């Protein structure tokens, strides 16, 4: 009698989709303080899909990839007659203090920003997977030492570390800055990989593969990676976000990409001047593009994690 009316947390309810479910608190006219009794609802498989985020992200990515077709001006051309113009018919997003067209720069520069995000994520994921797996497979003392090392790397604020490494590499370009960001952002993924590998390394198929003479990378790629890929997927997506933020912050501060390499960050590095002349469009427009991209990536990542978790719990 009870079970078709209420679902109690932790107890399986067979009639998930029964329409006339009533909340216990509601029925007795008492508002539940802490909802011990969770109201039942329809399974929502398609409702959570972040449609808006996907559409926005796709728009931005295709816009950036196909920037040659969208751009109305040459993004690098400095039109000295029309500098610091607010948005108008000819210059849709205005021009910056060097006379470049902001609208064209957004699409052209977005390509660089997104590329750095992806490239540095690839770098950091590669490092993290190899390092984490090595640490997970290694004997106790080596594992301890490697993990101690990651903790020390974590202990220096990553901004400072980036600055230091960038100073060593000299003038930044797209590849060096991706490398620097990648090298400084792999530790959290490595920790997850290590924990997963420690759980997996005693399993029969790994031992069997070892006995048949499988090398470290063979085992890693064919036996370990398929097992931990779902648990690091979310962190990898978030890493793209982190890398884009890092690039824009560095370029903004003048330690990252130089002014003539157009990216969202280097566009924002002109904002000190923009503040003096009160040219809001130079600060707001690249920033809004940046934030919208980051938000879309975040909700995409959240969705990914949710769907992966759902799969795991169904098994």
């Amino acid at each position: 009698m009870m079970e078709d009316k209420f679902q109690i947390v932790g107890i399986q309810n067979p009639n998930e989709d029964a329409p006339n479910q009533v909340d216990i608190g509601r029925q007795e006219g008492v508002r539940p303080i802490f909802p011990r009794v969770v109201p039942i609802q329809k399974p929502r498989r398609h409702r959570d899909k972040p449609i808006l985020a996907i559409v926005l992200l796709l728009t931005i990515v295709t816009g950036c990839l196909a920037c040659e077709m969208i751009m109305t001006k040459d993004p690098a051309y400095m039109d000295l007659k029309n500098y610091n113009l607010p948005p108008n018919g000819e210059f849709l997003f205005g021009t910056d203090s060097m006379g470049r067209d902001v609208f064209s720069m957004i699409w052209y520069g977005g390509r660089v920003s997104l590329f750095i995000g992806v490239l540095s994520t690839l770098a950091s994921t590669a490092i993290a997977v190899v390092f984490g797996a090595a640490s997970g497979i290694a004997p106790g003392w080596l594992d301890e030492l490697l993990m101690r090392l990651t903790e020390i790397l974590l202990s220096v604020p990553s901004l400072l570390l980036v600055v230091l490494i960038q100073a060593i590499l000299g003038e930044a370009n797209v590849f060096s800055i991706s490398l620097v960001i990648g090298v400084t952002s792999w530790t959290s993924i490595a920790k997850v990989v290590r924990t997963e590998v420690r759980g997996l390394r005693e399993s029969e198929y790994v031992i069997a593969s070892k006995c048949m003479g499988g090398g470290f990378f063979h085992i890693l790629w064919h036996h370990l990676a398929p097992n931990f890929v779902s648990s690091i997927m979310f962190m990898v997506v978030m890493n793209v976000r982190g890398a884009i933020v890092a690039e824009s912050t560095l370029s903004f501060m003048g330690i990252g990409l130089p002014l003539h390499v157009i990216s969202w960050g280097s566009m924002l590095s002109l904002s000190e001047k923009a503040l003096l002349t009160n040219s809001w469009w130079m600060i707001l427009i690249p920033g809004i593009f940046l934030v919208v991209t980051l938000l879309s990536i975040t909700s995409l990542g959240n969705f990914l994690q949710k769907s992966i978790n759902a799969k795991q719990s169904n098994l």
Partner: protein
Amino acid sequence: MKIQSRIRSRCHYYGRKVLLFLFSVFLLSIVVFYVSRLAPGDPLVSYYGDRVEKMSSEERGRAEERLGLSAPIFVQYVRWLDNAFHGDFGISYKYKMDVVEVIRGRLGNTLILGGIGFFLIFVFSLLLGVLCAWHEGRWIDRVICRVGTIMSCIPEFWLSLVLILLFAVELRVLPSSGAYSIGGDKDLVDRAWHLVLPMTVVVAGHLWYYAYMVRNKMVEEARRDYVLLAKAKGLSKRAMIFRHCLRNVLPSFLSIMAISVPHVLGGTYIVETVFSYPGIGTLSYESARYKDYNLLMLLCLLSGILVILCNIVAQVVNERIDPRMKAEVVWETSRDAARVNGGSESAGENEDAEEGGGEV
């Protein structure tokens, strides 16, 4: 007899922690030293400044000999360590002063910004988290979660820019840079006035994530059996939340806050630079731009030591409160922290939606 052995085991425990700390600092110093020696640029310049260019090659050789630059790098490291123990970290190339002196002048400002910011984050995230858990699933909870997700995607430097644009340029009510007006360094009101914007950014940048964590832990806690018991006993909601749930959430919150120090620290660095606030952050930015390696090295070392210390404090807090926690578990905690960092929003939204669905 029993007490003695307990004291001994305590000493043993803290001794191990201190050793661990020293070992980590030692490793850190090696890493920082080697990296800074890899850096391009003439180390002689950082000792003698521009005079190096006027030196003959013989003089250079002698100077290198005297500074020990011709020795192998580990000998240099040992010498550097020896000097460091005597409080000599070299001379800042840009400021032509002892590095320690340069940092001492700036440290206070950063401590004010970072310390008060950290305290505010701590208090507000608890308050917001409890508020959300209290009104779980209602509009206020949903609004706060939504705002938090959006705020967590806004880079700190851009938030600072927008605030400057709005309050300093457009409305002209707040100062946009510095720690005090010219000649006003003794004036507390003036200082506080200059702190408003940077502090807002520091707090707003970090608050949401921790508030989110508190909220999720509270919500999880509210589903435990003892809460049901408390409810059956007729305890008020206030008593249940503050006396029972919050008390169970606090330990993990404390350890996360201790681990969070590097994030807040890194945040103040960026904020300081944007607002040209004369603190450690601006200093490290300058030292990186002007290749002032002695200064940069000490700054890296200092922040690293602070972070290592905080990590160990977090471990101790965890183990004192919950003896089941062993060293292995602390790894898990920091791993969870990394996961929660991104995962918090999704978990929250999920619960959010579920609760919301029930209301409709």
